């Protein structure tokens, strides 16, 4: 799946949703597109999923140009959006059978597949209930199930866990991880940094319609800086600990009330060394940790602003109205 130099503007060019955005996902891998609201995540997904035409640029899925042959692309993809796009007045079973029929499966085949998917996503007990009685997590799972009717080669998940409670999120992650094990190519957008960390092989950080960094989670973290050793002790011991940390780190230490920290190159080794030194000095640490920079740090150092809503994404604004 490749997107090259995508540009998409709204409001007659006033809002630049995508500003020369390029990315590619290798077959069988997971790319997470990470960015705040308004960065252009949904627009990117909509273009790749044939729902939106870019002003310029080329996008291909499995080698097929999405603008030229949308019908061919649609046979290969599954899409699950931010909102559970299913008929809420119908039951889960009704919906899955309907989508099976719309994929031109036979009646019996659609029914079998619906039962299978409901079982797989732990929805069998609620199969005969209207979706509007479902919890948020159940809706998302059903929505995901609906996008898996024809075993898509390429799956788009647009913020699959936005708005879910922690338990719903964990369940969704589990389901997504199982899918990835099955070998699907996945493009996942998220504004949760830990979600990208957890699920993706590669992360593309986007901001204002541009990819501003990409690489594995570890590579991105390295880009920001290595690990830090962080020790918290009683106030009386701070001076002594600072001495120890300076010796191990050979860098300037940072003291924040009772916490002493400094960058270290060999994290695990430094940790052992620190523990020994503390033990020898009979100092009992309140907390000791090896801190790796979070993706929040990555975002901050890349964009100069924290991961938060910066502009109103026209796509989202219009969802209420236009879509």
């Amino acid at each position, binding site marked *: 799946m490749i997107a090259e130099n995508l540009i998409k503007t709204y409001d007659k060019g006033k809002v630049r949703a995508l500003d020369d955005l390029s990315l590619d996902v290798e077959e069988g891998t997971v790319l997470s597109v990470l960015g705040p609201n308004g960065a252009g995540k949904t627009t990117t997904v909509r273009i790749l999923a044939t729902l939106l035409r870019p002003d310029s640029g080329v996008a291909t899925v499995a080698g097929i140009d999405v603008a030229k042959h949308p019908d061919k692309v649609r046979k290969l993809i599954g899409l699950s959006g931010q909102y559970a796009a*299913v008929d809420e*007045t119908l039951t889960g079973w009704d919906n899955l059978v309907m989508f099976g029929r719309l994929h*031109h499966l036979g009646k019996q085949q659609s029914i079998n597949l619906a039962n299978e998917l409901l079982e797989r996503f732990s929805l069998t007990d609620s199969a005969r209930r209207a979706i509007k009685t479902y919890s948020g997590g159940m809706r998302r799972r059903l929505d995901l199930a609906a996008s898996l009717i024809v075993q898509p080669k390429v799956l788009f998940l647009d913020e699959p866990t936005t708005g879910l409670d922690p338990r719903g999120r964990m369940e969704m992650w589990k389901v997504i991880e199982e899918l990835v094990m099955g070998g699907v190519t996945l493009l996942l957008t998220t504004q949760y940094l830990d979600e990208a960390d957890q699920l993706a092989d590669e992360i593309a950080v986007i901001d204002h319609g541009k990819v501003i960094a990409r690489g594995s989670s570890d590579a991105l973290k390295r880009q920001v800086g290595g690990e830090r050793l962080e020790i918290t002790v009683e106030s009386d011991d701070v001076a002594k600990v600072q001495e120890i940390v300076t010796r191990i780190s050979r860098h300037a230490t940072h003291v924040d009330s009772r916490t002493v920290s400094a960058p270290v190159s060999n994290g695990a080794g430094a940790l052992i060394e620190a523990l020994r030194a503390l033990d020898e000095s009979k100092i009992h640490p309140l907390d000791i940790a090896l801190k790796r920079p979070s993706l929040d740090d990555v975002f901050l150092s890349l964009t100069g602003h924290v991961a938060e809503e910066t502009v109103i994404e026209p796509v989202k604004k219009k969802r209420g109205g*236009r879509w």
Partner: protein
Amino acid sequence: MVNYALADAVVITKRQLLQLARIPELLVFSTIQPVMFVLLFRFVFGGSIQTDQPGGYVQLLMPGIFVQTVAFTLASTAIGLAEDMKKGLIDRFRSLPISRGAVVIGRTFGDALLNLLVLAVMALAGFAVGWRPTSGVMKVSLGFLFLFMFGYALSWIGIYVGLSVKEARTVQSVGFLVTFPLTFLSNAFAPTTGMPRALQYFAEWNPVSSMVAACRQLFGVENQFGATANSWPSQHPLETSLLYMLLLMAIFIPLSIKKYKNTSH
């Protein structure tokens, strides 16, 4: 491809019927309002509007209420579609390898079937309050066919409006703002002779008037509420109605399908 297009449309229609089966209240509400109109007009206005129509005002009224009710199909189609858009369901349909017209065609089928049911319930209600068409089975059936087709044609305008406005509540207001004046600035409930000149002219050419006049003719009632001027529409209500319906469909079917295809492009 054509086979699939029809099969896909039928799946979408079935979905709408399934909704009615899953939420029977929907069915009750869509039939209760027209029945209420029949009763209100029959007993509120029926007593004070003087006609020399054998069988009374209700004979003139029923064609008017039938037409008004099917005219609301415009709004109900538009609202249904706007809701699907808002919920992202249309996006999902559009990401599926189904033929591009199927989703909207399916919806017009569904709304047409619902109209058949509503017309049947209204006819029974009308019968209960004294409506007695006298023209024979053939002509009465033709009258219902006209009503059915009128609803279907308006459904396609509804598709276009639903795709353009995309907010169910706005659609609802627009629907009422258009449908109410159109149905009342006509010969449906009262003689057009009482209206100011400009409105009379409008009422004369209003498709609703032509439809009501056509139905009155087909149900065997003299059209006492229209035909003030000797205009072509009032002289030829059947032809005019047919022309209006064909014209609307010829414009709005291709327009709506194109709009659906290009939505959010």
